[in-house]
């Protein structure tokens, strides 16, 4: 008996306090909630975006989509923790006309504030480094393919897109691209701002009057591309869309010839 008394009198070490904290009922229940909600968000991230995002037809699109899916998965434990704590407090909720009895009275808890800040900073750094790396890969791809890229001049005007292939001598309102060949879009507008968005290619760049802006990608899947305007550009903004095709090199060359162009 006296032994026990002595033991409890000793101040617990930080390690013991840490372990004890995890033994309390409220922390345990919160952790169970946290795991369930984390799993929910992980599954949501893995299901939602692949289900709703369109077909991936370039590495840019794949990288963008990966960022979205992985960020959801990474942030799931944070969401899990936050919502678990909120849900747990709801278990003790109080109804009625009078205030409940007084709650816990801690004013602050420095280790928790410190840990929270450090952990959120780590998540933040992960997100930053990840994003910068992917962005860098995108621009390295663009630089590496700069010489061999097929140049397409994209002109936005209210409310049509036109595509000019200066090297091939073709002008068209349909965007056709050869498979697996890098492409450089040189985008400009002749009136207000537009935003050139070949949806399945995962790139986008504004079209400005008298300025040429660039977007680089390499289509790597055969199929149809939806081309939209992503910047409100006046009355028929919603209808400023067309379709493009990624086709085999031979088909592309045939199309160029049929349009009166010359194959390089």
């Amino acid at each position, binding site marked *: 008996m006296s032994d026990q008394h002595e033991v409890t009198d000793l101040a617990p070490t930080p390690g013991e306090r840490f372990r004890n904290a995890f033994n309390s009922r409220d922390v345990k229940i919160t952790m169970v909630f946290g795991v369930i909600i984390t799993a929910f968000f992980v599954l949501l991230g893995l299901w939602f975006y692949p289900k709703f995002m369109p077909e991936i037809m370039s590495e840019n699109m794949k990288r963008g989509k990966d960022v979205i899916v992985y960020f959801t998965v990474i942030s799931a434990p944070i969401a899990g923790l936050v919502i678990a704590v909120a849900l747990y407090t709801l278990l003790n909720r109080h109804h009625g006309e009078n205030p409940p009895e007084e709650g816990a009275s801690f004013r602050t808890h420095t280790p928790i504030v410190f840990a*929270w800040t450090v952990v959120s900073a780590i998540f933040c750094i992960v997100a930053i480094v990840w994003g910068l790396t992917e962005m860098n890969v995108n621009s390295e791809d663009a630089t590496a393919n700069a010489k061999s890229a097929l140049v397409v001049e994209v002109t936005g005007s209210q409310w049509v897109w036109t595509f000019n292939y200066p090297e091939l001598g073709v002008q068209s309102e349909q965007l056709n691209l050869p498979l697996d060949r890098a492409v450089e879009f040189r985008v400009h507008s002749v009136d207000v701002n537009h935003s050139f968005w070949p949806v399945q290619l995962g790139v986008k760049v504004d079209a400005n009057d008298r300025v040429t802006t660039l977007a680089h990608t390499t289509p790597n899947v055969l199929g149809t591309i939806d081309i939209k305007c992503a910047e409100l550009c006046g009355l028929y903004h919603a209808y400023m869309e067309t379709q493009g095709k990624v086709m085999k090199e031979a088909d592309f060359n045939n199309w160029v010839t049929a349009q009166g162009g010359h194959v390089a």
Partner: protein
Amino acid sequence: MTTLDHAKVSESRPNPPKSLITKLNMGTGMIVGIVFAEVTYFWGKSMWDRQEAVMENRILTLSMFAWCIGFLIGIGAFIGPFRWLIGKDLTDEEQLFLAGKGQGVSRYFRYCTDHKVVGIQYLVGVMVMLGAGGTMAMMIRTNLITPGSKWVNAEIYNSLVGLHGITMIVAMIIVSTGPFGNFILPIMIGARDMAFPRLNALSWWLLFTAIPVLCSAWFFGGIPTGWTAYAPLSVQAGAGMNAFIVTIIIFAISSAIAGANITTTVVAMRAKGMKWNRVPIFVIGATMSVALAIPAFPSFMASQMMAGFDRTIGTHFYDAEFGGSGWLYAHLFWIMGHPEVYVILIPGVAILMEIAPVFARSPLFSYTTAVVGFAGIVGLSVLVWAHHMYISGWMPSLNGPFMVTTEMISIPTGLLFLVLLGTIWRGRPWMKLPMLGVYALIWNFLIGGITGIYLSDVPADDYLHGSMFVTAHFHYTLMGAALTGAIAGLAYWFPKMTGRMLDERSGYISFWTVQIGFQVLFLGMFAAGSQGQPRRVADYEQAFATSDLISTIGAYLVGIGMIVLLYSVVHSWRKGKIAPMNPWGAKTLEWTVPYPIYLENFHEAPVVTSDPYGYGRSEK
């Protein structure tokens, strides 16, 4: 000291002074304003040929400014400054009259300097604006119910999008700091009024003059540019654009005045003993918000003045053909635009931080962390504007740095979550209407925050920028977080502002309908954006039909819930249960004054000896 004594004190009606001031009110303001506008209009028509667009814009813009100035003259806003010019000032009787002493309802329609009157004016004004903006939102969603619905044509649709956007943005900027920042904040810090009562009245009536101007846009061809009003589209747009420009300039002046007033009040007029670490967190949040607005909004004003010059006197600030640049507009706009979202958000979060300790009966967890969180957000928010321009083509090499600053905001934002969670942890939350807002904020702001991280990431933004995903994201933060905070604040302070309790049953029905509808609405919109539906489109393809239908159903639920809330507010205001002095058992100073609140708030100046968060079982 009983409630009855107070009622007698504030009802004692001094004899109105014999002064022009007693004759002036909203009605005379409108008459003088309309006369000024008409005179300017016909003078302009006689001077310039209306056939040219530049001339028409010039005449309309001048007429709108004339309306604003005329209204302010007509309501008596300049009587005080005019007296100063001739070396005099208002007499004491006139000042008492201006403060609305014993004037009943009529003081709400006058140039009244009492901060409580201004607070109620803001509250009603905000509700009208939210109602108008919400109605437009319903019309937008109705048009998008099926592909090719053509319920309204593209021209009207674009106008609806622009007007909905700017109405809501203006309403959301003032939704917390207007009503509560004016009515509650001075009492909370133990002040007898704001630092500059006349400027306080001026800030409200300036804003008021902008409302009819904004509405007039509808009759001049609308605002077909979205609320961002990007140039050169805005230069090309019809006469309605002038109304947008005038509204923004007036609003920027109004918010600068209100911001200077609130910051000065908080810095200089706190009760004895209210050191900085004893200031209620809502006061800190509201002050940081308006202090952030002070440097941000002049940029908006400058952007619109230059747009106005382009439209009315033929300059070419934004016209590339003559050496201008649309990017210049985008920069000026977003230098205001990104701090502005935090101007909206911070007071909403701060209100809920004020509410959480009261209803969880626990101290605010780590006051310092909350302040650091707000300060971190304010500091970083001025360094992130170009994340709205990742894909504009303007200097892609700076996308990296802007991505870093933007994602860093997640750290101070995370601290705000910690404060809220730490406060409710191991408490017994009292599930009254204001407390429900805390939980709604935690969920909504979490979704808004996480989706914000994707958008801050350049490779993901390459895909998502300009899509419905962005629309859903910022509605989660602005509506799901900031508006939820404001509505919770209304439920919380309603007893103090009206003397009556907000009806609980209709309040709960409204809360759940709005929140469930909100999730349905924006889940559908996240899906549509992920699928690749651009924002601000009047029509769309079959592929997005299901997502948009779900969105519209959710929007109607939100609409129904908001109508119930409106009913709840109006009904409770007229016939609600009489509120006790401190229905929530809160410890901030505003709960120590009975309703109706004495003209100068306190009979005896309060002395503060601790912070207002001494809740909890064994306070050490």
